[in-house]
């Protein structure tokens, strides 16, 4: 399952970040921000139009991610 498919308020655990293409800078940055295997994440809020962007809590930090970015993150154990 992908992070972008999580409902608002749902929690999950990161499995990995997928490169959308070779040497994907966004995927690399996501990993640097802490989206690595085993980290719990939670979708805290979503934007007013079309549910975009998502506000994702990881660790003690909140990041705003657009859906295309969140789709790179594969998660386990979430409830869609």
């Amino acid at each position, binding site marked *: 399952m992908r992070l972008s498919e999580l409902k608002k308020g749902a929690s999950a655990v990161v499995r990995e970040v997928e490169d*959308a293409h070779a040497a994907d*800078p*966004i995927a*690399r*940055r*996501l990993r*640097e*921000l*802490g989206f*690595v295997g085993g*980290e719990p994440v939670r979708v*805290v*809020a*979503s*934007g*007013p*139009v*079309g549910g*975009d*962007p998502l*506000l994702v*809590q990881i*660790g*003690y*930090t*909140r*990041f*705003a*991610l*657009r859906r*295309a*970015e969140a789709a790179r993150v594969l998660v386990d154990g979430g409830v869609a």
Partner: protein
Amino acid sequence: MNALVESPRIALVGNPNSGKTALFNRLTGSQQKVANYAGVTVERKEGRFVAPSGRTLRLLDLPGAYSLDAASPDEAITRDICEGRYPGEPAPDLIVCVADATNLRLHLRFVLEVKRLGRPMVLALNMMDAARKRGIRIDVAALSDALGVPVVETIAVQRGGAAALVEHLDRSVAAVATAPSLPDSGDAAVEADLHAQVRAALAAAVTMPRATSTVDDALDRIVLHPIGGLAILAAVMFLIFQAVFSWAAPLQDAVGAGVGAAGAWIGGLLESMPLLHSLVTDGIFAGLGTVLEFLPQILILFLFILMLEESGYLPRAAFLLDRLMFKAGLTGRSFIPLLSSFACAIPGIMATRSIQDPRDRLTTILVAPLMTCSARLPVYTLLIGAFIPRQTVLGLFNLQGVVLFTLYFAGIVSALAVAWVIKRLRRDRSEHALLMELPSYRLPNPRDVAIGLWERAKIFLRRVTGIILALTVLLWFLSSFPAPPEGATLPPIDYSLAGRIGRWMEHVFAPIGFNWQICIALIPGLAAREVAVSSLATVYAMSAVGEDAIAAELGTAIAAQWSLATALSLLAWYVFAPQCMSTLAVIRRETNSWRNVGVAAGYLFALAYLASFVTYQIARALT
């Protein structure tokens, strides 16, 4: 000088919004801009301070970075300096890695990355006060052991909050001179997963009752609510413009009355010298006095800007509006630079260094001048005050405030439209990343806000007594000479150089309703937008025939002489016009290209002329 060059250099690095600049200000006593969002500092700033031992230490404040694998121009500066690759600058003697104690999981990763550089370093755990308040307990000794880096606690916003750091720097800089302290532990884990190390360090040294502060959770539920959040955003914006008009009016009248009285008194002393009398009353007092009246409004606007910046609300606003920015082809990262442009386009354009994609960055730079900078406020309020009645609409809103809001809104909408057109022209299909951190909320510190306002007032007064005064004197000179011939019937300005230039320009600007007085004011207005107001005041004071007209205020004068269509047309002009040489200069510097300057100036001028033309013709047809 030599001693200074040889004094040890210390670099402050760390994640964005970890309080590096606050620490820098605390240590060096300077007043660099700080705010509660990522990416305030985009330049390398240098300062120095004297340690208790008497040694002078040089301190570098660097832009925040999530990683040394730089993704944006500002991160690249930090990377280059840390690695000793910055042109003309050796690597720092000591690196102070600043981490937000309430956000260690993210920030320690960068600390470990910096550690891998193998340079002497120390970790400053900043915002310890906030951490304690949230019940976060950190065992400093255990953390230092787990990371293999010395650790000190700091509270950058508190007097004496950096004492431990200063003491440590003083000691370890002395050690650096003899032997590099703290060699890298050298174990194979250096290349292992940094995050695993962070987790281990946290487990060993930190107890955290819960992941986020309850206040943040509660506020975010309201502020980021799909409907409620947008309503709050609209209300906040609206409140600001209402306040700019309603609160400032009494202060403005007081300033105006004071300046008028002083002008009349000094003018009385100079009766025997008619030319000097004209310079002082028509030039300096009419011109500068008119601009000075807008100080209260500018300060009220900045009061709101400073409070919003400090509170951490701005990134939330960016979150709510992201979809709109996305449609226009802008990245979410453009929001902060564009918002800074409401103060002034120059720091706004510099703030685009935090944007990763060079094309996104250029688009943001090109549309930043469309955001209504505070220097336009005097022009707007002058015209609104003179032409828009002070009445209440819908039983709640001040009509003048509504018009001001509309003008700001027009700037925002056209910026989005221009960005959209640029995207189309480039057939841009690339991805625009957001990846924006939302900081914890913070209550604005009244003392910091007061200092910020005082700085603002100083900048404004320095401009009034500097460039605006100089240009006013020059304009007065050009409007007085050559002197009128014997037996002249019109006011002297009609025969002067400025008068002739104005009449010549009038041919170009007549279709958009500008008279020759406005045309004259447009030229010095290029140096600074407020000068257009002081220039108009000077020109009208000098065109006044007879003694009784001289006392008339600029607002009254233009209300009597201009048509509503002309006033609206000038307002529309100022929404777009590329009337700021410094902005063009900074575009040149940041993009390193005259072509971009030409593009920006060209399209802004074309838009301004078009908008004014349409406004003038429609308004004339209707009135």
